[in-house]
């Protein structure tokens, strides 16, 4: 059996680990390059579990998140990213400016 990637109780989401991406740019590219069927399948798998997931994640202080919980957290960020595709647009990205042209910087906090 392969090593558990997500916290106990969330292993059923492991088929969606391809959405567990650390950077905003990776998540943008994933959204842009995935067909709606895949985006929707991910959405439908995660949304019903979100209450449980967020409650689970809330137990960790921001600076001390174990790797498996971090992976789970990245899934929620991908959900935030693709939710508009499912709930608003019915296609991976809306018509308009290509988001890959954007330079996204978190200007601060550069220190805490």
């Amino acid at each position: 059996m392969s090593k558990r990637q997500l916290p106990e109780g969330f292993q059923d989401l492991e088929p969606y680990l391809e959405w567990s991406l650390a950077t905003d740019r990776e998540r943008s590219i994933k959204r842009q390059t995935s067909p709606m069927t895949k985006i929707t399948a991910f959405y439908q798998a995660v949304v019903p579990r979100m209450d449980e997931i967020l409650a689970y994640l809330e137990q960790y202080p921001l600076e001390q998140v174990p790797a498996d919980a971090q992976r789970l957290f990245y899934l929620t960020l991908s959900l935030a990213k693709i939710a508009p595709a499912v709930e608003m647009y019915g296609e991976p990205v809306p018509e308009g400016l290509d988001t890959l042209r954007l330079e996204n910087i978190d200007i601060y906090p550069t220190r805490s």
Partner: protein
Amino acid sequence: MTLQTNGATGGKWHARYPELGTGPVPIEPYISLEYFEKEREHIFRKVWLNVGRVEQIPEPGDYFVKDLAVCRTSVIIVRGHDGQVHAFHNMCSHRGNPVVWNAKGTCKMFTCRYHSWTYGLDGTLRHIPDEKNFYGIKKDAHGLTPVAVDTWEGFIFINVDPRPKETLREYLGAAGESFEGYPFAEMATGCSTWEVDVNANWKVCKDAFQEVYHIFSLHNKSTGAAFASTSNPYLNVHELALFGPHARISVPANLDWKPTPVEALARRYGMLALQKQGSSSQGMPSGVNPTASPDWSFSGLIYFPNMCLFVADGGIIMHTMWPLSENRTHWEARTYFPKAKTLAHRFSQEYSRATFVDGVLVEDGGTFEKTQSMLASGAKKQVILGDEELLIRHHHKVTEQFFNA
């Protein structure tokens, strides 16, 4: 000038500001290089411009550099040992190299990469390598050239005019005053920014943020329904008000909007930057929901020339447009929000950012280059503005006043 009599609502705002007229507006300001050069000399090199926030440079020695092509300079903004914010042209007194090459950092001294002339955080010239090789140079007379700088509610403004005609506060006037006391510092403990160079005149960008008439249409799939309601289908605003060169806009919400499942989740764990229904302006200054409307979503300070600052219950959205030429703009879109306390709160903010990117960067941003290319076609000489587009008209009027001053 006569008002349209086609039974439209046109005229409500015009009645308040009849001096702005109702006629069409020429396209030339959006496509002319000559016009752009006038904007540069009469406006951008004369007025206070927002370049950032104090949170970017919390400690003495923290600095950032702002390249201001439109002012033909690059400016260092630094917190000095005196705790104050200082600004200097980023130009070495020796032979003109920019003293700082990186975009931001922390240092005790600025050392020019070229020949290592060294300057203090106060701009004074401290050290010249092999000084005896120079001809009795007086170091006191060769510090960095200062740029006027001041702060308002934590926002840092510079003015490259060596002798600004007005203080920042005088320039901000009553418009600025009416936003003083909004919890800017509390809201701005976090910041995300998106920057992009677009092939469009800077006013094409700004115009998209000084009217909300387009929301029902351009944003029909995203935020349209959250703002526009059956009783206000075209999102006529609560207020448009003019204050000298600046303006204020206050935007309704659709109280009947039912959040989508993920939006509802995100709201449960934190306010969203562009809060829609359920916003409260309690305890906020007079410019925030100035009409005290229960169906309020956000209010904006449209700062002349190039900043649109929107404040809501949950956070701040700001757009700054930096002209690069008559048909090129560096657009900075920012969301300021309180630093997240939990992972769930981070998720909530991520949703807020995602919808901001889709609904604003992509959808509004998608119009800029398309519009510009047709404005430049020469097919038409003017555009038409409705009553709800008063602030666009106002911008052109203010520009004329600057040109004639």
